[in-house]
């Protein structure tokens, strides 16, 4: 079931909420939690009931190992073996489902082995629930878990708002919340705040992300099919995808956070205006924050982090980012994307180091410097997304060639005429204005729309700033609190007016879920 489906919004969610609060109010907390677990499993099984076996087995397995680890003395061979076995079993499971085909395909290519392997359908959300439970095992080994109740543990893994696409929650931030009696009592303001955050997320997904996708999809399709793209076409596709991905993913995280809030649960923050980042290190503190946290705590730091000198640190960063890339999908373009971001991070750390050497401290940079830094960071991220989105490596290169102007700068004649002196200036710089528009030039309106989205992304407050009064999400990093903007005018409040705005936003977002099928025909 998708959050942006009628069956979810109008049937599943209201029923689950109503029954949860009825059970909770009448004192049956255990029943209420059981209900949420069952509802979450139903939500999960909606796509493919066959996957229920896998997630249930995974829960029983990891919970049992956690119990054993709790009872075993830390550091002993027995504890180490249990942990190693648990982590290995989880990795084998995800490796089989997610990476077996990738591995066999590549082995066939390299060894010309001709192995035949049926395509394995990836069970939904396996990357998310596997990672959450590996973290749990590692912490159980370190003695950082309590004796959790099984129902609560099952809910921690399956809780439907975060099950499919994160945030990747940590047991320490979730399980204590289930103990808190207050969440079982209905509170209308909590529901309202949750519904408003959900509405903002749904709006981002159905209205903005789905709307901009029409500019991205055909450009990447063309590039993957070997079509040469001109400058404007390539940038249109790359930027459209950059925005689509952001509004889609951050919208989904908002929805998750809003849904959990309706049940009185706070989820960790997952996106915090990543494209406002002034450097790549900052970008990764704002983009898919719970994944960054997981990779830092369970990959980068165990590898040694920055403790073994700068060169080892760079190697660790690269390994972490390569694994991060592979986590997103079993394909070489994802690996390249990870490598690219690893390289960016290494450069960023090197640059910071040089600045400290030269200036004695990291230079702050003026407004202009920050603006340049933001643009450079953004372009670096866009280049990364090209690899992330393209189906093939040559497809990604084709888009990048177009963006670099290697296939020329072409606009239709009408646009040249409409631009007046600017058009003349561009012509002088070598731009061509042709009678026939390039196939993937979608008119000045598309450029205007992209500019509008860029403005929204860079200059408007994000969901958490808008909702800042009501502590919408948990901070992911203890040291970096969600900054509050004093005097923010676009700040949602518990007033009738703002409540009505939330309702209107929900309505428009739901309108975005349906479309009337159409047939595009050249004659018109």
């Amino acid at each position, binding site marked *: 079931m998708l959050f942006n489906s009628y069956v979810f919004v109008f049937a599943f969610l209201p029923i689950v909420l109503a029954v949860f609060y009825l059970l909770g109010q009448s004192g049956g907390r255990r029943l209420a939690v059981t209900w949420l677990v069952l509802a979450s499993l139903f939500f999960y099984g909606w796509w493919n009931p066959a996957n229920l076996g896998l997630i249930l087995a995974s829960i029983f397995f990891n919970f049992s190992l956690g119990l054993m680890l709790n009872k075993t003395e830390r550091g002993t061979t027995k504890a180490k073996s249990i942990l190693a076995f648990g982590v290995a079993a989880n990795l084998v499971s995800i490796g089989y489902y997610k990476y077996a085909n990738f591995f066999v395909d590549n082995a066939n290519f390299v060894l010309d082995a001709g192995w035949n392997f049926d395509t394995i359908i990836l069970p939904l959300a396996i990357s998310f629930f596997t990672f959450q439970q590996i973290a749990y095992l590692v912490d159980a080994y370190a003695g950082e878990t309590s004796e959790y109740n099984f129902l609560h543990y099952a809910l921690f893994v399956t809780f439907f708002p975060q099950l499919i696409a994160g945030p990747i929650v940590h047991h320490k931030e979730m399980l204590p919340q289930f103990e808190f009696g207050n969440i079982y009592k209905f509170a*209308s*303001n909590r*529901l*309202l705040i949750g*519904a*408003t955050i959900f509405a903002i997320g749904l709006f981002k997904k*159905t*209205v903005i992300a789905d*709307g901009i996708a029409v500019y991205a999809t055909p450009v990447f399709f063309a590039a993957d099919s070997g079509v040469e793209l001109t400058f404007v076409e390539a940038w249109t596709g790359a930027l459209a995808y950059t925005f689509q991905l952001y509004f889609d993913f951050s919208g989904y995280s908002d929805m998750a956070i809003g849904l959990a809030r309706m049940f009185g649960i706070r989820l960790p923050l997952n996106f915090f205006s990543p494209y406002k980042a002034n450097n790549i290190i900052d970008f990764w503190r704002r983009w898919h924050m719970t994944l960054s946290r997981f990779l830092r705590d369970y990959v980068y730091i165990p590898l040694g982090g920055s403790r073994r000198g700068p060169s080892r640190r760079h190697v660790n960063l690269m390994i972490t980012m390569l694994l991060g890339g592979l986590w997103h999908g079993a394909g070489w373009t994802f690996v390249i994307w990870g490598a690219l971001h690893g390289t960016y991070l290494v450069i960023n750390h090197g640059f910071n180091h040089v600045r400290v050497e030269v200036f004695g401290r990291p230079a702050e940079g003026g407004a202009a410097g920050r603006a340049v830094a933001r643009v450079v960071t953004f372009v670096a991220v866009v280049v990364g997304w090209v690899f992330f989105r393209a189906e093939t490596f040559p497809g990604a290169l084709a888009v990048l060639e177009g963006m670099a102007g290697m296939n020329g700068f072409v606009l239709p004649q009408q646009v040249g005429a409409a631009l007046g002196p600017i058009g003349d200036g561009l012509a002088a710089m070598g731009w061509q204005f042709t009678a026939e528009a390039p196939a993937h030039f979608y008119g000045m309106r598309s450029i205007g729309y992209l500019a509008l989205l860029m403005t929204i992304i860079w200059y408007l407050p994000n969901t958490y700033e808008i909702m800042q009064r009501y502590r919408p999400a948990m901070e992911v990093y203890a040291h970096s609190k969600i900054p509050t903007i004093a005097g923010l005018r676009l700040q949602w409040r*518990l*007033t*009738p*007016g703002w*409540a*009505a*705005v*939330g*309702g*209107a*936003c*929900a*309505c*428009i977002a*739901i*309108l*975005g*879920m*349906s*479309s*009337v*099928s*159409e*047939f*595009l*025909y*050249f*004659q*018109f």
Partner: protein
Amino acid sequence: MRNRHKNLRYFSLGFVVTAMFVGILNWTVDPYGIYGVSIEGVNTAKYAISNHMRLHMAVAVEKIAPQSLIIGTSRAGLGLDENHPGFTAKPVYNLNMPAARMYELLRYLQHAQAVRPLKQVVMGLDFLSFKAAGGEYVGDFDDGRLASNSRNWAVRRLPDLVATLYSIDVLAASLGTLIVRNDTCLPRVAPAGYGVDTVAANQCKVARTGHRKMFLDSEQEFLLDLYAKYDFTSRTSGRSSFAIFREVLRFARRHDIDLRLAILPVHARQLMVIDIAGLWPAYERWKRTVVAIVAEDANEHGGNAYPMWDFSGFNHVSTEPVPGPRDNKNQMTWFWESSHFKKSLGNYLLDRVLGTETAAPRPKPDVGVRINTANIEERLRDARAGKRDYQQNNRTDHTEIVAIKKDIDG
């Protein structure tokens, strides 16, 4: 208690008021022309209707309840006039859908019959309608909305009603319709009408780019997409379009419909496109099979065949010279581009099919021939010869189309 939930009630209020506003706006502006609200200069220029013709046509048939139909692809829509005096049973409705496949034509015929029994039907036959490889229908077709599918109004109309009042696309289309209200170059719906008029839109195209560019654009679309992977049989259903055509005849017999069939005229360049696409054998097979099916049906009904005309082929009309590149002054008499004929030719076609004499100017009588099993082979031979001659005498036209094909094949 009431006060405690005050803000939640305002949230609901915001939701409901927005929903009502959007619903009323979409209903009033009616961008797909299905609610019958059209005010000249406000929302008659319904540009968004073009991509939703199947929805529009299904609703229009219910509103108009025609006794006579013109049915076919956009060729019928742009070239045949429902006000032609040859129709005796009124109202007449021009039921045309872009690139309509045979299955769709059958289903819409059944739909119209379920709304009101039909008396007279002129069916325009188009080679494209028999393509079933990509499926038996395209784009916005939906069986569920047809009266022949369900007698229950709610089952039939409610999904469209909800989607066309409550979706963001429709909201955008409504706002767009209000913005372009004075643009005379868009498909139009007459006030209180349910027909779609695209003549003015085509006239604007001629004025803007000239005929030749329109020819080239259309030919490219056919070579690239419409005629690509041509097959008479659907891969999904395994059914052949000929079987569906047979079903059309059976349906007409069962309901005593006066059915007249016409292979619609195309410009000679369209026949070149078919040839260059490698579809000439399929094209001949199409004509032969259609003629055979009509004959088979006649044999089952005492030799009384549904009349069928062939307006395609090479003749002084179809070989009408195309104005040169960038010539946007000279107007063609009979065609918009390769695939679409003008009403001037359509009126003559309806004259022949309906037995009237109203068209002016009138082409010579070799345009449009009654075909049957007796003369089909001769027709096909003539066409082959005509094709050779046209190719020889119109080198530039031929080379132009070959160039498009080469460009596509890379």
